[in-house]
């Protein structure tokens, strides 16, 4: 499944890049309860408690930054599993200067297998779109409020 979007944020590209390069900052943009259990270089792992419809529970995930071009582009690969589900996701964001701020064009390619993919097929796209939009909206707020520093 592919979802994408674009938004502008009132923060410089370098600041945005730094924000997204830090898994702590990135995960704190999630509305769902989560933990970050380890960060080692470009690799990180943790848990997130989330769900689709009535399939809810804790997912374990491992992430790795695949591409880091300061001020331009950043991408992450995440593999997670839990509750009879597995998710493989590639998240990427292209950054572009827009006056004093930054334009962020993001995209996510997500492969979901397991019970959620079977049972909640009709709800997954809208749920993922909603969660992705929430994540980036939270990121924008943090960046603009200076909470990212």
């Amino acid at each position, binding site marked *: 499944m592919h979802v994408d979007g674009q938004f502008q944020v009132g923060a410089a590209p370098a600041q945005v890049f730094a924000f997204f390069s830090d898994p702590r900052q990135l995960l704190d943009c999630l509305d769902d309860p989560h933990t970050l259990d380890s960060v080692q270089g470009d690799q990180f792992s943790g848990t997130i408690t989330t769900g689709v419809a009535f399939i809810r*529970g*804790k997912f*374990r995930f491992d992430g790795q930054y695949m591409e880091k071009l300061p001020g331009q582009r950043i991408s992450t690969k995440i593999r997670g*599993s*839990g*509750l*009879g*589900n*597995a998710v*493989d996701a590639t998240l990427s964001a292209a950054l572009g200067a827009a006056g004093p701020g930054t334009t962020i064009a993001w995209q996510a390619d997500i*492969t*979901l*297998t*397991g*019970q959620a*993919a*079977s*049972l909640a*097929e009709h709800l997954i796209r809208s749920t993922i779109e909603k969660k992705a939009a929430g994540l980036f909206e939270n990121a924008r707020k943090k960046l603009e409020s200076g909470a990212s520093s």
Partner: protein
Amino acid sequence: MTIHGGIGQSLQRKEDARFIRGKGNYVDDIQLAGMLYLDFTRSPYAHAKITAIRSEKALKVPGVLAVITGKDLDAAKLAWMPTLMSDTQMVLPIDTVKFQGQEVAGVVAENRYAAADGAAAVEIDYEPLPVVTDPVKALQPDSPLVRPEKPKKSNHIWHWEVGDKAGTDALLAKSDVVVHQDFYIPRINVSSIETCGCVASFDPMGRLTMYMTTQAPHAIRTVFALVSGLPEQSIRVISPDIGGGFGGKVPVYPGYVVAIVAALKTGHPVKWVETRTNNLMSSSFARDYHISADIGVTKDGKLTGLKVKTIADHGYADAAANPSKFPAGLFHIITGSYPFEKAFVEVDGVYTNKPPGGIAYRCSFRVTEAAYSIERLVDEVAHKIGMDPAELRLKNFIPPEAFPYHSALGWTYDSGNYGGALKLAMQMVDYPALRREQAEKRKKGEFMGIGISSFTEIVGAGPAHTFDILGLKMFESCEIRIHPTGKVMARFGTKNQGQGHETTYAQILATELGIPAENISIEEGDTDTAPYGLGTYASRSTPTAGAAAVVAARKIRDKAQKIAAHLLEVSPEDLEWKDYKFQVKGVPEKSKTMADVAFAAYTNPAPGVEAGLEAVDYYDPPNMTYPFGSYICVVDIDKGTGAIHIRRFVAVDDCGTVINPMIVEGQIHGGLTMGLAPAMYEQITYDEGGNIRGSSFLDYLVPTSVETPHWETGRTVTPSPHHPIGAKGVGESATVGAPAAIVNAIVDALSPLGVTNIDIPVYPWKVWQILHDKGQT
């Protein structure tokens, strides 16, 4: 004179007294002291390598006692088990998962909630592998291999063929018209009200009792003995009340085996009951046949030859529940009700990344697939040559005088009167008036369709010379004990799952023994007490166990006649069995009832006759029985939405001698609804990643009473000449016959637009798309 509750009476079902009061005793009602619960961690991937299984967190969940993996089972050589078709399937995987939802680790806990929490806490690392869910793609050389350990290094499992290929080709070549049609009969699930489950319990002496949802308790016991090495006498299988089987409770599932291992490991009884989603995702499926057929006909409407090529998708293991000799079941009944001069059928079994199986969902081993194909083809022929479908059938039917009829594909049909059934159905529905109405509606641009299905079933497996499962000959058994007070206990090797055996077997025995049905108790499903039998599926109970009941009862009558002669002080030859008692010939007032004889058998046995009044029979049927019927469906199609309204559905069935008309009526109603289901609602599909679509009743559409039309039923009676009372079996006829009638009606309605086929299930959106494409909406 009649006997109360004898054959032919609509006796109310004895078992309903407990069912309607909620007093049934199902597997999940079994509660044993110290009982534990089993749940499974399942694979999210359709195909993946397992790189690690970590149980530590699961074992910390309060109440969790054990985690069982494939490696644990492998140490005991139990990681794999044989299927009924001599293939192998995993109990739990050691290193690779083969379908989404596959059981990977079993978690045993003090309650089912802890077991579920524990299953969620097992951590498993996977490396995804390429997935193939399409059997046609699976046969391509570059397809991922589903079973790379097989020496063949191919997803092709087996090839099976029957008939005269060259002769059929020659006949088709000289036929005036050859109609070709491809059909896909989708994968479906039987969706019994009760899912599968068991309780495994060892006593202190190491004897295993398995309470389980099985349609074949004795065969399962033998399989357990062979797989586990436990002495067979140390295994007791009890199949309590079952909430529907329909073929889905014939196979051995991993849950059964892991429950036994868990009971051994923990020293406690262990219960496993699958959820609805587990059942839809991983229990044995039905159908999934890709059929390509050619049928020949002369220009004046005489059917000539039939050639059929089929790809059978078996998932990752061939775990079909077929007789050993027939990997494609009895699919070669596909010549149906017609005397084809030549026919040829070939079937190829294929592995894919789907759950294993290939069970007979309320049909006798792939007969639904066969009946659907031939009845759809015959309608297509009628449309092609411009002949009325009823006229074409009546012109071609095997005539009554041709029975016993030897089909081009090797079957010997016992009896039939196909024209009689179709003519009755046509009369009930007023066929000529419907065709006139249809013509008028077509002039107005309305879409009304009339569909016929004149199917032939093949049930009662089966004669020992041809039929076995894992080498076990498919006989059936009955043991009768008449107690001193004239009351009867009869036990059978079959197992009731809703068919009404407690009633119909009692009716057979009432007629044969002259003892009212209320004085006859029927028991099945306990291997410690019932005689060995192959179980209930494929409409075999009445043709086989029903016959065993008759033969055993007649053995008792033979002995009873000697005792009655002793009581009446005459020679046995001076007696006759008349009006349900032994009468002195010519002196009917001198008589003894079976109850009189029973008392004497224990208190005053005849000289030279051993005490007691019991008999057992293991009945080996000389042939299959061939029930049949003609169904006519009338549909109206809404041009705006594509909605299909079944206005009328007339079903005329012939199952030979009818034991209980009310029960037969109920079987037909249920069967028709289960035939409606695949025609218009049910299917399980998979996406390219192997994710199942249809793992809950939100997506898997089981028709309810709202969707089910009013069924109108009729009956003809053509007894089986080789069955002791002429009965044939009826449980599955309607499921076999209904889909083609419905789809023929829909295609007939749309035939003015050039429509020749719509793959089932025929959803309104498919019809709307056709109407839209043809400018009709």
